[in-house]
């Protein structure tokens, strides 16, 4: 599933990484606990989270993730967006809740295993 498809399905607003819209995401992970995210390596993954701090971007970077989606209209700081740009990670925000956002992506074929 491309990052652009994720954006469309979640009605999300891109905050950075427009140049990554055509990239393929193979798996997804939804969590507010970064150590849980770090426990399971995903290949070319997207992270959905309601947590907003710099460690979200750093965790995504450590895991070589391609995209971070902030749910419930959470807005990352400009510093976080700059960090994501440096790492080449696409960032978007959606008004959907975590459960709904994960459910929509899952039902459209994106699961946790890649």
């Amino acid at each position, binding site marked *: 599933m491309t990052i652009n498809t994720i954006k469309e399905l979640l009605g999300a607003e891109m905050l950075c990484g427009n140049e990554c819209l055509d990239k393929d995401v193979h798996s997804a992970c939804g969590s507010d606990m970064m150590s849980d995210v770090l426990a399971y390596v995903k290949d070319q993954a997207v992270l959905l989270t309601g947590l907003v701090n710099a*460690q979200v971007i750093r965790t995504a970077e*450590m895991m070589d993730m391609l995209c971070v989606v902030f749910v419930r209209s959470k807005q990352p700081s400009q510093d976080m967006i700059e960090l994501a740009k440096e790492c080449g990670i696409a960032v978007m925000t959606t008004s959907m809740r975590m459960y709904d956002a994960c459910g929509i992506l899952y039902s459209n074929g994106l699961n946790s295993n890649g």
Partner: protein
Amino acid sequence: MADTLTFHYDVDGENFTSAGQASVQVKKNLRQLGFDPETIRRVSIAMYEGEINMVIHAGGGTADVTVDNGYIEIVLSDTGPGIANINQAMQEGFSTAPDNIRTLGFGAGMGLPNMKRYTDYMHIDSVVGEGTTITMRVNY
């Protein structure tokens, strides 16, 4: 690899926002050295969890990374409170982190288990009241 390479970092214990910067730098260095993505990811995740632990529990510390023949070694040292029961600390879900750390996305009791998960060797030396040194190796 003919020569041994070493990198030293001071981990600032005062600033949670900047925690992980040493791991980011190691990741960049290993990438420049041409390591495969899986090895880089294992080293950087294990070190990142260790860095976060030092910031949460020990007020910072030092990180030394050595690229040797066949393995990458990470040594994390702090002069924090030490670990009273290492076997307990290694169990997934066991945590002594304060509640405010959980609101930051950490402190779920996954740090040390994740460090073990991603490395081929891990040894913890800890004395209560004196500090902790963790040595990890990732083979390549």
